[in-house]
């Protein structure tokens, strides 16, 4: 199809999104990723029955952690699409890149400067 999508996306392949761990998502944020999204199979079509549902729960858990850390939870998302939906894949990639760009760089790489306390 030779579809083009945002060059900001780095793809990490896993055999099933059920393999994605909370730590994979957290470590990406920790290492300075502006955002991470998981692209799983369509709901109900997981070859391993519920891998994509497990991934969604993990994404939701990471969102809660980010919220606790006062980082925008939207930096982590889950999408469902089939491997036959190339156009949708490109659309999501552009959508995510756009959304993250609107949020700005991750506060992990651009620390909040703490105001000095008054003497």
């Amino acid at each position, binding site marked *: 199809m030779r579809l083009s999508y945002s060059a900001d996306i780095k793809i990490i392949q896993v055999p099933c999104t059920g393999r994605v761990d909370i*730590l994979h998502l*957290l470590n990406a944020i*920790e290492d300075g990723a502006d955002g991470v999204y998981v692209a799983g199979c369509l709901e109900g079509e997981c070859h391993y029955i519920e891998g994509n549902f497990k991934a969604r729960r993990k994404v939701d858990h990471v969102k809660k*952690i980010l919220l606790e850390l006062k980082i925008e939870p939207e930096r982590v998302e889950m999408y469902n699409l089939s491997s036959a939906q190339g156009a949708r894949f490109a659309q999501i990639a552009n959508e995510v890149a756009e959304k993250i760009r609107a949020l700005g760089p991750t506060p*992990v790489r651009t*620390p*909040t*400067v*703490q105001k000095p306390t008054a003497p």
Partner: protein
Amino acid sequence: MIVADRKSLEEILAMVADNKKILILGCKGCVTVCNVGGLKEVEILTSSLKIARKKLGKPLDIDIQVLERQCDNEYVAELSESVNDYDGVISMACGVGPQFLSEMYKTQVFYPAVNTTFFGGATQHGVWEERCAGCGTCGIHMFGGLCPIARCAKSLLHGPCGGSSEGICEVNADTECIWDSIVKKKMEAGQLEDLMGVKGLKDWTTARDGGPRRSIREELVQGKI
């Protein structure tokens, strides 16, 4: 097992606010089983704290380790070489862990990352319930195997109070009235008569009311077995 809940990240971050290098110490005992202080939880806390501190521009250097148990000195001793390499140590064990650590390593600071809640078990994945109050004089056989001390809000020993309604405790709508369950179970077994007798006063000196407790097994102390 002992059940615990992790403290909020805000609380934990406040504890180590001035530290630059810490150790997060997990435990392979009860807290691993109740998914609060095992290796996975240690790694998640580590990453979360690192993110938070990077965000503040004050990166935190964190090492991790998981002991077999933090409630046994032989395992706590494994830290003897490294414990003073850190500004502080976060223990993810139950309240016993940080105390054993503090007793062995007098100059190090040990922060509790979890709130120890009760003795209980998992009734379903992700849900733990209290089953034992550690009163020191177990008599659950008298109550159909269901403990009214741990599971009745008033620890009543002679039947339900007036706050029992349709099997639910007045204290909390999510709590079953354990006396309702005890009576039903005994009725179904045709053993209701067992509950009719007047029980003697319970000896609470074996419970916390008698102060901190100690269990001594002479044969083990003497090394005979």
